[in-house]
């Protein structure tokens, strides 16, 4: 499908342009009103009327914009991987309970530390431990879902199991919340609203490295993902080793969804909706095209959502989770009504 790849070149250039535009839009808006001209000069190290503007742009807005790119692209990519692996158009980190798993990990760490005082003693409550806890939580859920998927061929059952995981997690989280003090609870609730801000450059580099590994593993899975489009038996008959490929795809998904959820909170709908949106523009199932396209799309959508969440020129910031749901849910409904069927 190389000829096809060429015909999609234009679309990719377009996507890159839109990405740059939304990136700039994102960093030029925020609670402090900085004129576009000053934003430009701050970017290229020029003169800015007020010194703090430069600081805001370089240490707050730019890391936030890059986080949005990583979060949106990574979540969308993990959604694509799962839709193909589970042969289900409704799969995504949220629906399959993977975000719930990450929440559970985060909750156990943030809220459970009062119960397991050992953590607090060792001063484990830093970002690395949060990432590890959330990633472990999402891996655990992914593995269980995978085990169930091997036994239950019915994809509907899988989704119900994912929903059940969501309920179990929120139940455990409420139990933990009941026993934890106000400060810890507040920290967890703010985490669960989702946010792409508040990441330092160091944290951003850590997130970027994990997402990069996830993307790399996804790229290595492209051929296998294409084979999975026929179903597992067909994939096997094409020489794909099922166990190895499944594991590879699961690790990629777990790294992406787990690390992103750890840093940015459980962000809804991006993983589910973006792959479907991408298939509207890129009329192909070839993962060589879809993997990069979905990443671009997710990044652009997340930048836009974050720009909206900033409520430009006002001091308040909306939880990003609300924005992605407000945009994502209607998109899924619209796709369903228009096509009468969600195909993947």
């Amino acid at each position, binding site marked *: *499908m190389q000829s096809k790849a060429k015909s999609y070149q234009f679309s990719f250039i377009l996507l890159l342009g839109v990405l740059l535009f939304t990136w700039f839009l994102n960093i030029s808006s925020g609670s402090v009103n900085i004129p576009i001209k000053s934003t430009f000069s701050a970017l290229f190290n020029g003169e800015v009327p007020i010194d703090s503007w430069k600081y805001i742009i370089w240490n707050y807005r730019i890391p936030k914009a890059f986080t949005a790119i990583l979060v949106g692209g990574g979540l969308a990519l993990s959604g694509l991987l799962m839709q193909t692996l589970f042969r289900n158009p409704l799969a995504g980190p949220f629906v399959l309970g993977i975000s719930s798993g990450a929440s559970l990990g985060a909750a156990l760490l943030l809220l459970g530390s009062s119960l397991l005082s050992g953590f607090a003693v060792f001063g484990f409550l830093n970002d690395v431990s949060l990432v590890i806890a959330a990633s472990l939580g999402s891996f655990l859920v992914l593995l269980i879902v995978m085990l169930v998927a091997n036994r239950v061929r019915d994809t509907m059952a899988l989704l119900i199991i994912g929903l059940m995981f969501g309920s179990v997690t929120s139940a455990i989280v409420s139990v933990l919340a009941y026993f934890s003090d106000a400060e810890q609870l507040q920290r967890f609730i703010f985490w669960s609203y989702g946010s792409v801000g508040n990441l330092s450059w160091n944290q951003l580099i850590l997130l970027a490295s994990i997402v990069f590994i996830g993307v790399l593993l996804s790229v290595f899975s492209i051929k296998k993902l294409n084979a999975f489009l026929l179903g597992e038996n067909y994939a096997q*008959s*094409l020489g794909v080793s099922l166990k190895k490929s499944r594991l590879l795809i699961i690790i990629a998904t777990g790294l992406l969804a787990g690390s992103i959820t750890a840093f940015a909170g459980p962000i809804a709908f991006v993983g589910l909706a973006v792959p479907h949106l991408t298939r509207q523009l890129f009329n192909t199932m070839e993962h060589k095209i879809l993997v990069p396209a979905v990443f671009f799309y997710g990044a652009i959508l997340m930048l836009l959502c974050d720009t909206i969440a900033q409520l430009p020129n006002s001091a308040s910031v909306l939880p990003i989770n609300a924005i992605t749901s407000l945009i994502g849910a209607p998109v899924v409904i619209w796709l369903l009504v228009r096509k009468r069927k969600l195909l993947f």
Partner: protein
Amino acid sequence: MEEQKTTIEVKSLSIGYKNYAVAENINFELQPKELCAIIGVNGIGKSTLLRTLGKLQPKLSGEILVEKQLLENYNPSDFAKQTSVVLTEPIASKNLTVKELITLGRQPYTNWLGSLTATDKKYIVESIQSFELEEFTGKKCHELSDGQLQRVLIARAMAQDTPLILLDEPTTHLDLYHKVQILKLLQQLAHQYSKTILFTTHEIDLAIQLCDKILILDGQENPFAPPCELIKEGCFNTLFPSEMVKFDAKTGTFKVNK
């Protein structure tokens, strides 16, 4: 005369699942250019046999040799160059176009990213042409009729360029015309491209007319021979309970007892 080349050889094979054997004592061998049907009543193990031969499930005992090599000695990617399959299960994504689906048949030969070489493209074009699918290449699989989709799936198996092709009930859900069309295509594929084709079917009448060999799974002897010999030996007479249907050896068809 050129040496006889055996594509697949099966010796005292038992198939089934961990706890119980579905069928035992299966013996047969097939050469290139042979079209062979596997027939038998529902639940006798036709699909299980096909899946076992396709290395999709383990055998219980006995030997399966594909191109003179034991099945268990193949690694997955080498085996994919020997055997292609067409299964009854629907493909997972009906959103694939015909071209994309047929292209997937080349996976065993492409590099890690699945890039197509000139050879790959040649096989894809050849498959599309042999099955007269030119007008459908851009269509999505969910837009095709059952008969068209079956042709596409067989074309994909052909693009995989394997000496052995296994098909599980390729003619179910099709009307008589399309049943004949599919079986004729299989016959043509076997004879023109020197393939060995093995398929399960309930269309015994058509199999008798079109196949070079037939394997009857009856749970005991599992006779295997050209259709005419099987008729002579009366193997079809006992296939179904005789109070319902009777085999007419003269016409090679089954008649309902009135």
